[in-house]
């Protein structure tokens, strides 16, 4: 075929496809987004105010999901944690996504020695143990969500880089790229305006999986006291506190655990759905 055309740019139809194919994913992700964006306004109580007189209340009319050991409203804290989780998601996807895509795009698009060097750098990054790097960064700086998540973001760089590089290599010899070259466009401009838009689909899929991972890492690091600092809630620190009362008030740990699982499940299903969608539209 001699027809010169860029592959279909994928956005259109993706949302409709997800809604149709995996409504559960759509629902869970939508709930997560609502909680993350509107949490502070939706929360029935303060998420940080302690009230020792109301400690460890079971779920009731005032406190729908009960209260924790310091009398703080569990529902409000869960909503706050969703906001933190969303921040973790964003920081990781932005750090990993921007750096990874840049690395992959340049490596795959230019090839040769550049590819060789960048690929090795990516492999080195891939070898880093995420948790250890996160702990070291937090120890050097100080415990905070941003510090912990930048470490996790660095660990996500290889995922994005590999996908971006793969797509870039695939596209490099395609007709529309050669046409662009023939028109006298510079390599960097071709990468930015022709190659990059065509890897958005696969990158979004990676983002949904790595973002879900980020939420898990955030919970894990906060569980260890290395992430969000008190009094602000996070799934991890809530779980850590709930663990102390497993036998007295099991609902504490169960609600947090179920919430995190639901968010991760939603994001993973979303990733699967998107993956199906792009596979189909590629063919």
């Amino acid at each position, binding site marked *: 075929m001699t027809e010169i055309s860029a592959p279909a740019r994928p956005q259109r139809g993706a949302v409709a496809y997800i809604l149709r194919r995996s409504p559960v994913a759509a629902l869970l992700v939508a709930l997560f987004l609502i909680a993350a964006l509107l949490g502070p306004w939706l929360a029935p109580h303060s998420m*940080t*105010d*302690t009230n*020792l*007189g*109301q*400690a*460890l*209340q*079971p779920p009731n009319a005032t406190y729908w999901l009960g209260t924790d*050991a*310091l*009398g703080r409203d569990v529902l409000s804290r869960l909503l706050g944690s969703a906001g933190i989780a969303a921040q973790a998601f964003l920081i990781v996807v932005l750090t990993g996504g921007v750096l990874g895509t840049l690395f992959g795009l340049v490596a795959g698009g230019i090839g040769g020695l550049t590819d060789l060097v960048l690929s090795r750098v990516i492999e080195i990054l891939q070898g880093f143990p995420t948790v250890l790097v996160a702990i070291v960064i937090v120890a050097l700086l100080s*415990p905070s969500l941003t510090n912990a998540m930048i470490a996790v973001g660095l660990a996500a760089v290889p995922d994005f880089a590999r996908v971006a590089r793969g797509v870039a290599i695939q596209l490099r010899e395609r007709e529309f790229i050669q046409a662009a070259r023939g028109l006298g466009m510079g390599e960097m401009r071709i990468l930015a305006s022709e190659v990059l838009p065509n890897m958005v689909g696969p990158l979004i899929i990676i983002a949904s999986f790595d973002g879900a991972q980020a939420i898990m890492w955030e919970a894990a690091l906060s569980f260890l*006291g290395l992430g969000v*600092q*008190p*009094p602000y809630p996070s799934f991890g620190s809530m779980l850590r506190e709930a*663990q*102390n*009362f*497993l*036998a*007295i*008030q*099991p609902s504490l740990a169960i609600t947090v655990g179920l919430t995190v699982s639901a968010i991760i499940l939603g994001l993973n299903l979303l990733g699967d759905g998107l993956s199906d969608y792009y596979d189909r539209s590629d063919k």
Partner: protein
Amino acid sequence: MTKPTKTGLAGAAVMNRAQFLKLLGGSAFATMTGSFGLTTAALAEGGDLVVGISSDIKTLDPQMSPLDVFRHTIRSTVFEALVFINPETLSADPMLADSWQKSDDGLTWTFNLKSGVTWHNGSPFTAADVVYSITRVQDAKVGSPFAPQLTAISKAEAKDDKTVVLTLAHTVPGLLANLAVIQIVNEASIGTITTAPVGTGPFKFANWAPGDRIRVEKYDGHRDPPKVAAIEWRIVPDSQARLAGLQDGSLQMVALVEGKDVIQAQSSAGIEVIQTKPYVLYENFNINTKRAPFDDKRVRQALAFAFDRAAYTKSIWFGFARPTINPVPPEMATYLPGSAEQYPFDLDKAAALLAEAGFSKDKPLTMEILTPTGFDSLKSMALVLQDNLNRIGHKVTVRELEITVWIDRILTKPDYDLTTNNYNTGPEDPASMFNSPNLAPTANVSLWNPPGYADLVGKAAAEIDPKKQVELYQELQKLLLEEMPQITIDHLPLFFLGSEATKSLVIGPSGIDDYKKIAL
């Protein structure tokens, strides 16, 4: 109000592990429980007592660490002092000293040592060891935190192998209580005290894997040998994991637990709560009084008003702790009547005092509260104070630190604003509290030593007339409550969890326990 539901819930939820496994049934689980049973039985037969503790010790030198975990481990087993404070009578029982006499003027004390006592390396224990140990603690170069206990002793000498004579600069009613926390060490092996300590205690040191476990083994040469072959302390920072260990038999005892653990244990069959008198320990905030703005007593008083002690003891300690602002418990004769209730929870008053000191919503007080990991109640304490102060517009952060880092920040450097802490009240001797690392005029965590304080502490400790001594101690408490270098929160007992067999543990009021009677 909330209590009945809570215990009700706990009753339903805490079936013990055996019941849980039974419930699950199935042959796989039967084999599993079978093997579980086997390992527990094997442990018990070997006679190893496995104890869970929350955090690690920092050194093996008994004269160098005031840490609670250390008192209840190495100091209680490998080493001995001249006397042992009986937790029931709060008076001194013989330990390395068989008997003692004091001269009529109270300035010369003669201790007759037990004969036939040997060090774990086989060499005989003599009066020279006692003299060496006392002078070592007193030596400023050694820097022992126990030095304030011995300020009254001007001379220690060995009259013969079995007699020690202590000469005092002034009289001290609590000399025996002071000596009860001074472990006697062996001069010949002092070089290896941090790696292979040698003591006279019923157990000899076996090994210490930092962060993991500490092991001591029965010393057959002891005059009253213990019944268990060894004690192994496992460092399990997570309280839920310690409780689970107790339930599945991998731990036979858990040391120093909190109210939430006691509540959970009470509803499990077969777990016994072992506890001391209810005023052996107090929890508090230490304030760095050398650092602005905490050098201003109005700021310190404001912090004292900003904490609801009654609600804290009720919900975090499930009522096992008793709220107070005065570290001296009402049970002691020296207690200042009515003082426990001073500084009632009053956020308006706290805000007003802070405003006087120049802090308001527009110019908030910024501070950091440190709290050591592994102490959940202390962390809750920090979070409650943080929230109360943030609510009136201030900027408080809470930082949880590993215990060794925490010690470095509060004692070694010191570099902190506020820290949570707890300490023994020392009910056996009123002088003990004011000579503890929290309050000793020579050196204390709060770096607090106002003019006249050292004199008053010295005078009170030396006063022989009980009535006058009470007056002096009440004056000290007034000073303490006015100046507020530390905010006391509550009095509480020490809690251990164990089984019927481990109930014979004797928990000493100063943290020196007797494990000899435990038979598995």
